[in-house]
Each structure stands twice: as structure tokens, then as C-alpha cells.
């Protein structure tokens, strides 16, 4: 495997970084995070117009025929900027389940947000427990209706439709419902990370469109999970590298006892440790993304390792950054806490590090 980014990928990275810098100047993330919507609803359509939403889709589906790696380049840069909006949800959680639903893919390509509703209030909370899904799908004339409650739905408030994991008599399948549709009650839950709010979807005989039948749903969900965990690992690396950059510039400028505090090893070594943690996690995240892109048999263990490592590295880097910022890093005004909250969101999605390490342990010890 080659870790070098192609010239094309580097140009994409620069373009995303530059656009994110324009659209999210200092203070903008805080403004959006404290707004009712929680994001700029025009932003996804803007990215769709630039072709960033459809990078990995085949050309016949209106995409650019590139791969998952290009998507992760966008995700890493959006993570650095702490972009609030359903890019990751739409491209990693929803779109891979819609390969046979061109009309729904077309809505994402036009800039509508989409997400995946898989968890429920009494579980499942990890993909391994999906068998406990209680939401029911029933055939109703020529169509389907869904009844049940889906919980912890990422970005629900910013999405116009959701792919729902539900149970039909034939087994688990995937259906799409419009968030504003009949029989659907969508609420945004108070979420520590206000830039990526979780929602609850209460479905009462809600008309739904079958997108993946039970015979194929297992494979599709496994693919969605791999893609999402690898994407989140990459996003965590983006979040963490901004935390390291903020710490690096602050300790170089801030003076106490007549010296920049970065001259004190008790301070500089904390920044060094964050940098190390981030670079080590970056190596795993790139490896995981490569495995997913190439359908490598190591993909399940690679994404588990990367998600555990990168999620925890991002939390660690933010905590070190808050510490070396001193009092200012502990204030609501400073942007650091928003990065910290995103890092924690990522670190616990689909289970904390210990959950994903157990997947590694099974590979290592139970074979």
C-alpha cells in the first residue's frame, strides 16, 4: 500500500481547506452551534454543487467515479474545521444503503441531508446488537409502513430523510422515510456536541420506501459500518490535528515567568505527546480507509483499531490542548471545548474504544 496522496487528492484537500476557511471564519462554528438549526443549511448544497458529496459514486449514479479515499480527504478537512452539517452522515451512513435507489441518491446529490436510524432507546447501540431492533416494517397495499422509535440518529435535524433499520417478517431490512412525512415525528435531542446533534424518530404507520431487502441488508449494513467507522477515525484525526495546532501556537505566544510557556518541558511535552498520539492514529486511520476502499479482508479489524485509536487520540489531544491553554481553554468563548465535544462524540459512537478493542481481541485471541 502507498501512503502518498495523489496530486488530485492533494488538490481536493486544498480546495476543501480553503472553502472551509472561507465559510467558517473564527467565531462561525460557535455561532452555528448556538443557532436553532445548528448548521448552515446551504452548506451541503454548496458542497454537492462542487461534486464533493458524490465523489465515490459511480459515474452512472451521477458521481465522479473516484473512491472512498477521496471522501475521507473531505472528511478530514471538515473535521479540522469542525464543520457542523450532515456531510459524513449523508455520504457514509446513508448513501451506501441507497445504491439501488437512484431517486434518493439524486436528492443527496442535490444537497439534501440524509442519515441512518439504526439505534433504539432500549438498544441496539452497537451494530453487533442489530438483532434487537424492534421497529416493525409492515406491508400495506403496494407499499410499506414503519412503526417504532429510533434513537441517537446523527444529524437528524439537518436531514430531509433517513434510512431506517427495521424488522419485517422476512428479517431486518432498510427503508427510507421522509423526516417531514406522515406518521413521522422527529425531535432533536439535547446533545453535548451541538455541532452534531442526535435525534429521535418516532414512527407510527409511517409510509416508507424499501431500499434494501432483508436478503441483502446484512451485507449492506456491514459495509455501512466499516465506512462510517473509518470515516469517523479520519474525522477524529482532523479534529485532533486542529487541537494540536491550537496548542502549538498558544504555547509559542503565551508568556509566563518571562518566557513563552512552550519553553517549559512540562508544557511542551504535553503538546509533543498529543502530536504523537495524532500521528500514530493517523497511520491507522489511513490504513483503515485504504482497507475499506480496497475491500481488504483486514478491514473489520483495521477499522476497529483505527476507531479506538483515533477517537481516544482526539479526546487526549483536546484535553492536552485545554490544559496547556490554562484558564482561557476552559472558557465557553474559546473554540476548544467544541472540538473536545466532537472528539467525545466520535470516541463513543457505536461503542467506546473498549468495545472496538474487544473486536480486535476476538481476532487475536479467539481464532
Amino acid at each position: 500500500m502507498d501512503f502518498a496522496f495523489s496530486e488530485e487528492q492533494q488538490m481536493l484537500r486544498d480546495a476543501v481547506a480553503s472553502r472551509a476557511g472561507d465559510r467558517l471564519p473564527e467565531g462561525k462554528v460557535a455561532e452555528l452551534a448556538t443557532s436553532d438549526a445548528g448548521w448552515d443549511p446551504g452548506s451541503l448544497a454548496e458542497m454537492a454543487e462542487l461534486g464533493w458529496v458524490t465523489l465515490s459514486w459511480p459515474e452512472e449514479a451521477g458521481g465522479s467515479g473516484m473512491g472512498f479515499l477521496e471522501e475521507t480527504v473531505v472528511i478530514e478537512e471538515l473535521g479540522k474545521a469542525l464543520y457542523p452539517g450532515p456531510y459524513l452522515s449523508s455520504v457514509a451512513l446513508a448513501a451506501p444503503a441507497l445504491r439501488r435507489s437512484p431517486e434518493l441518491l439524486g436528492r443527496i446529490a442535490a444537497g439534501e441531508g440524509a442519515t441512518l436510524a439504526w439505534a433504539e432507546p432500549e438498544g441496539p447501540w452497537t451494530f453487533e446488537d442489530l438483532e434487537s431492533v424492534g421497529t416493525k416494517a409492515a406491508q400495506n397495499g403496494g407499499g410499506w409502513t414503519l412503526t417504532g422509535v429510533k434513537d441517537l440518529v446523527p444529524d437528524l435535524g439537518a436531514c430531509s430523510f433517513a434510512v431506517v433499520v427495521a424488522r419485517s417478517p422476512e428479517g431486518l431490512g432498510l427503508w427510507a422515510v421522509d423526516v417531514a412525512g406522515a406518521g413521522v415525528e422527529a425531535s432533536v435531542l439535547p446533545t453535548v456536541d451541538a455541532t452534531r446533534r442526535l435525534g429521535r424518530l418516532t414512527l407510527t404507520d409511517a409510509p416508507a420506501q424499501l431500499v434494501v431487502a432483508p436478503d441483502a441488508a446484512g451485507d449492506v449494513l456491514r459495509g455501512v459500518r466499516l465506512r462510517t467507522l473509518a470515516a469517523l477515525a479520519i474525522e477524529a484525526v482532523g479534529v485532533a490535528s486542529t487541537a494540536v495546532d491550537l496548542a502549538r501556537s498558544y504555547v509559542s505566544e503565551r508568556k509566563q515567568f518571562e518566557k513563552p510557556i512552550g519553553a517549559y518541558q512540562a508544557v511542551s511535552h504535553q503538546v509533543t505527546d498529543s502530536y504523537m498520539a495524532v500521528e500514530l492514529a493517523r497511520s491507522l486511520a489511513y490504513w483503515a480507509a485504504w482497507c475499506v476502499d480496497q475491500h481488504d479482508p483486514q478491514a473489520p479489524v483495521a477499522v476497529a483499531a483505527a476507531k479506538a485509536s483515533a477517537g481516544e487520540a482526539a479526546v487526549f489531544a483536546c484535553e492536552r490542548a485545554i490544559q496547556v491553554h490554562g484558564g482561557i481553554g476552559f472558557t465557553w468563548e474559546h473554540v476548544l471545548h467544541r472540538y473536545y465535544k466532537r472528539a467525545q462524540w466520535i470516541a463513543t459512537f457505536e461503542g467506546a474504544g473498549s468495545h472496538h478493542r474487544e473486536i480486535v481481541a476476538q481476532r487475536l485471541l479467539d481464532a
Partner: protein
Amino acid sequence: MWCQGFSEPGSGSDLASLRTRAERDGDDFVVNGQKVWSSFAHIAQHCILMVRTDASAPKHQGITYLLADMDAPGVEVRPLRPITGDPEFNEIFFSDVRVPAANVLGEVNGGWGVAMTTLMHERGTLGFALTARLEVAVKNLVALAKETRTNGRLASDDPVFRDRIARQWIELQELRFTNYRALTGLVKTGVPGPEGSIAKLHWSESNQRLTKLALEILGPRAPMEGAEGPWNGYWQYQQLRSRGNTIEAGTSEVLRNIISERVLGLPRSR
């Protein structure tokens, strides 16, 4: 066979403060002083030796790199036992040892640059060797966990040990793929990328955690060594030896300074 004469009792991390002196006398340099932590000195024929040739110059500018003959009169080698008890290192004493001036590597008083090249080479190519060593250690750890009963079950079935063994495996992959990234940078640009600087630091700390975890898995049998010990004392040796990992070839503190100053561009600490 060659050995290295760099560190001295008074000059470890601050290598440029070294005091072993060499004075010009005709066609020779006459060397007096003491070197320490030298591997293989008891069997080596030659020594790459750093000496002070100008005591009045700034410390980095008065050092010369000599190639010395270990069989020359006045060279005395004494074994230095580390905490494992196994002789592995030596002290070398130089008393009026004559080294031909033709054996200067580089320029007289230009030895610091040569030494830095040696050390960069040592650190730059170290990553893959370290990955291979850690891979063996992880493999052994897995084997140990699968055969050792603890808390009424195999260690490999104990959730606490499972989590920590998985961590060690993940840390190994971090090292492996960070080296690949460093290599990619090297191939593309001709200079090692910043990723390489963290390999030794990460390996040493990971190996220390791993070997302590092995002793924890052994539990009450961990204090036994040699023929009485599990695995014939392998883990006891590995664990004690690992304490040197964060000291040899650059202490973790010095490596962190290097990363913070040269990679992150933070203010100098001294």
C-alpha cells in the same frame, strides 16, 4: 567488529559535553578518558570514538571523530552489568592510547556533524527493526495469554487482559503503519518525514507496557526466573531489559525535546 565510544559517565544526553581528550603528538593523537555503555567492546577490534580535540572552542566545535584500534596499548575494557544481570555493555578506559592522525573521520574538530549523521542513520532505519521486534513480543504475549490460567480462567478469556492485549496489538500496528508513512515521505522527498521521529519513542514505551503486562498475566509466578521461571525467565529478562529502551539511543525526554523543537517548532527549552 566495531564498537561505539560516544557516551561518558558525565556526558549522556548532553553528548557534546564529552571530556575524553585527544592531543596531537607527531603523527598521532594521544587519547585519555573513559567511555561507557559500549556494546560489544569486549570483542570488538575497532571503536568509533568521539574525543575533545579543542577544549577552548564552543563545545560542539571541539570534537573529533576517531577510528581507534581496540588492541592498542592503554585500552582497557570492563564489563558493565545492567539491571538484567547479563553482561551486555562495557566501559572503555583510554590511558595514553595512540591513534594515528590518519584515522580521523571527517575534519579535526568537525566530529559533531559526523556523529549526528551516524545517529540520524541509526534512528532513521530503526523503525522497521523495532516493528519486527515488537511484532515478536506481541506474538509471544498472545501465546502467553492463551496458555496462562489466571482468576480461574485463561488470561485470554479475561476481559481486562483482553482489552490490554488488544491495545498492544493496536500500538504495534500504529508503529508499523507510521513507518510506512515515514518511508513514503522518504521515497518522495529524499528526507525522512517527521513520522520517523516518533517511532523509537512509541516503540520503547509500548514495549515497556507489553512486558509489564506479561508479568501481570504471570501473576504470582512472575518473580521466578531462570529454569524455575515460566518461559525459562524470558519475560523477566524482557521486562527488566525494557527499562533501558527509553534511555538508550536518546532518552524519551531528549526525543520529546527534539520533536517539540524541530518538528513542532516550539521555543527552545535551554
